[in-house]
């Protein structure tokens, strides 16, 4: 069974965008989630991300992240309610507990926990959409010139994770298929076997990387022969943009830019600017103690509306033909119907 967070190639705007553009867009939501405590803003960021994920075709990843995030949020709410006794609205007095002392569950502690949990859930959804929509190969390729060894490690890890997951699934199946007379397999022997197998796998993957030339010193791309002689810079730019000499497309090596990049960079930048401005204008008005107070001022509402709208950035308009070809009705009619006065 494939992980819902695994990258799935699609032709949507978010998948087509360069990793930088996608990170700028989704990162802006994450920054808002980290920077703001207002449940209204956090909720708007979460809904915006859910819309973005659904439009990008990452519905399964969003659902899985929401399940995990909301479970975590509930846990945080419960723990916060037990360990924090601030707040004026006491909902329950649970008496004296070992280690924790007197436990009073307050509405304010619950609200504070919910805000923290909501923040965690929003960040998890942002990462889920990133994981399902951004090609890790392109990310690693972008990182390689900056940090070759780190990129190599990341490549090994990113490949070994699904391989180890597949190995673990096979080992679990084999454990289930053991006869009742065979020694039962607990988690420890299974984990030991998986670890040993993973080391073997890592050696094999490393050998493959070696054979692919990963250990070669980083080389700059060969400049096209004609370009070095004639109009080198403009031609190189053109080469990078459209996919090179003598070609106008292709599926590999040429996916450097997308027509959606500007949109995602712009939306990300607007969100960040609005978040900074919103902070200054009091859009993050929220206090948990001593009583819960949620600000619903114009700045908060405007930022929330912007976050919701930003969720529509991965929307792709269906292509509409700009030139309408006239249907040769008269010709069809004349072919199918006898002319007046004919025959």
């Amino acid at each position, binding site marked *: 069974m494939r992980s819902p967070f695994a990258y799935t190639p699609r032709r949507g705007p978010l998948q087509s965008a360069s990793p930088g553009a996608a990170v700028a867009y989704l990162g802006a939501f994450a920054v808002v989630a980290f920077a703001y405590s207002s449940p209204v803003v956090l909720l708007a960021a979460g809904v915006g991300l859910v819309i973005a994920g659904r439009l990008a075709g990452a519905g399964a990843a969003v659902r899985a992240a929401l399940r995990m995030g909301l479970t975590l949020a509930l846990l945080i709410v419960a723990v916060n309610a037990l360990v924090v006794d601030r707040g004026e609205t006491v909902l329950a007095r649970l008496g004296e507990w070992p280690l924790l002392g007197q436990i009073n569950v307050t509405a304010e502690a619950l609200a504070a926990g919910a805000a923290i949990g909501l923040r965690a859930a929003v960040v998890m959804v942002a990462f889920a959409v990133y994981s399902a929509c951004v090609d890790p190969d392109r990310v690693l390729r972008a990182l390689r010139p900056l940090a070759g060894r780190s990129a190599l490690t990341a490549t090994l890890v990113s490949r070994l994770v699904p391989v180890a997951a597949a190995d673990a699934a096979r080992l679990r199946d084999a454990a289930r298929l*053991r*006869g009742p*007379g065979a020694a039962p397999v607990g988690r420890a022997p299974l984990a030991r076997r998986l670890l040993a197998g993973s080391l073997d796998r890592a050696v094999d*993957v490393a050998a493959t990387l070696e054979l692919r030339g990963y250990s070669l010193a980083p080389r700059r791309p060969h400049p096209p022969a004609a370009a070095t002689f004639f109009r080198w810079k403009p031609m190189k730019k053109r080469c990078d943009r459209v996919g090179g000499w003598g070609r106008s497309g292709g599926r590999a090596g040429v996916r450097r830019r997308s027509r959606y990049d500007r949109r995602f960079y712009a939306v990300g930048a607007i969100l960040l600017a609005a978040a900074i401005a919103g902070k200054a204008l009091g859009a993050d008005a929220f206090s948990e103690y001593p009583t819960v107070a949620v600000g619903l001022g114009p700045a908060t509402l405007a930022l929330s509306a912007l976050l919701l709208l930003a969720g529509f950035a991965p929307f792709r308009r269906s292509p509409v033909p700009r030139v309408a070809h006239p249907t040769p009705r008269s010709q069809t009619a004349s072919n199918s119907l006898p002319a007046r006065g004919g025959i």
Partner: protein
Amino acid sequence: MQFGTDLASRARAAPALAVEALSYAYPDATAPALSDVSLELAPGELVVLAGRSASGKSTLLRAACGLVPHFHGGEIEGRVEVAGLDALASGPGELASAVGYLAQDPETQVVSTTVAAEIELPLEMRGEPPSARARAVEEVALALAIPHLLGRTADTLSGGELQRVALAAVLVTRPQLVLLDEPTSQLDPVAGDELIWLLRRLNEEWGVTILLAEHRLERCLAAADRVVAMDGGAIAFDGPPRDFLGWAQEADVALETPAARLFSLCGIEPLPVGVRDARQTLAGRGKAGTPLTQLFPKEGGPRSPRGGFGKSTSRSEDARPPSNEALLVHDLWVELDAGEGPRDILRGIDLALHRGERVALMGRNGAGKSTLLRSIAGLVAPVRGKVELADGVALLTQNPGDYLVRERVRDELPGEAGAAALRAVGLEHAHDADPRDLSGGERQRLALAIALAGRMEGEGLPALVALDEPTRGMDRARKDELVSLVATLADCGAAVLVATHDVEFAATFAERVVLLGEGVVIADGPAPEILSGGWYFATEVARVLDIPGVVTPDQGAAALRQSADFVVWDQIAPQTTKSREGNGEGR
């Protein structure tokens, strides 16, 4: 492409591969893996590397691409030169521009997430510009018929698709020498044949030198220029394919192809290197002007002393009492999601197996064989239909090593139930052994014993014993051991269901073949009938003779002898096969 111009100029004068007096031992190994190996491959040759398991084939390939000794360590003597580069001085990365290596397991040979990125990676490592990368990826994808896979992620591919992607990543840099270690072991007969002929085409059109290690020699001998046979780490034979068959006839019959075996049994010369060759030879020996296929009636074929070839050698389903059923599958539908949305893998399967029956489950990669076995064993829940088992099931999956998690056999199989399971597979002597010290075949039997343990009543067996692709990477000798084991299990009353791509193995062990296609049973009948009625899912003997019901060399030889119109060599010139010159002296 601009890279490799120095290599190209050097390679014009140098052999593609030159190995001289090479001896090598892995770290901590008690015996050398290679002993005094000398070999030279001319540019543009396609050479098949034959030999039993552990004869040194894989080690020789690893030495040729630099993994031995640079990656594996160990002690090495001698000289290895690839396209003018000293392989012992250069690492695998430097050699990679001249040599491509495809190992057995494609799962660990794919390092990127998407197929396009995987194929592009070697070019990127060499600093190729995006335009050259795009063109090279497109061309190699077209050559391997995988352009539709370029946009997919590696974890959604089948084993056969992964194998092709890994091969594309090897070929994309257009290396002068390509080394392949059993590339067809995970492929169905269709994909296996396609791959071999694709290699031949690349060899002829691109001038690529190919060294191909393979157990299923009947697939590749016809495409080979030369065969190198290894035994115990040394080269035992080096010569043309026809001479190799003559050598194998005397030195190691396990390396004979089925068609060569057929000819050997009939004493016909020359031994055939492929189906076409065999048919031409046989047609020349038929009655003048009579095509081979007309020598025998299409229905029934000639009869052997033990019964008709065209008839089922299995007990027919109707003859079995209903209570003897081991497995009943009714209208089974299974839906799985491999990342591209849910898809019906099995579509209304109906199947009944009886105790003591030996059945081969065949079909293309992705036809649903493994899913059917997993559904029967309860690992996959059907969306519709039901599976009824008379008395339990023991399933051995594709990787027997997954069952072995402890360091002693006795720890895996304690008590009387464990001892009984070990006896059932003939491993009672290995009670105190470390599973890692057992041979590949013994490890497989141990895994089967683990699956059987506690499911046997006394010395009895579960109603169904199922094995999923048990012959991957096995040589002929180990397959023969497996055939004996399957026969023993069936004789003890279990129905044995084996999913396999290996038609020759199926012809040897099975009495019935179930052929799956796209999740549907497309053929179900006696093995001789199914395995002689097609082209891809047919044995080499069946393709040579085209006689209904004749699938093995023994059956073919009997059929040829019984044809009054056919001139069998040993009837007119007995024992002349020994008079050939050069066989066994090919080096």
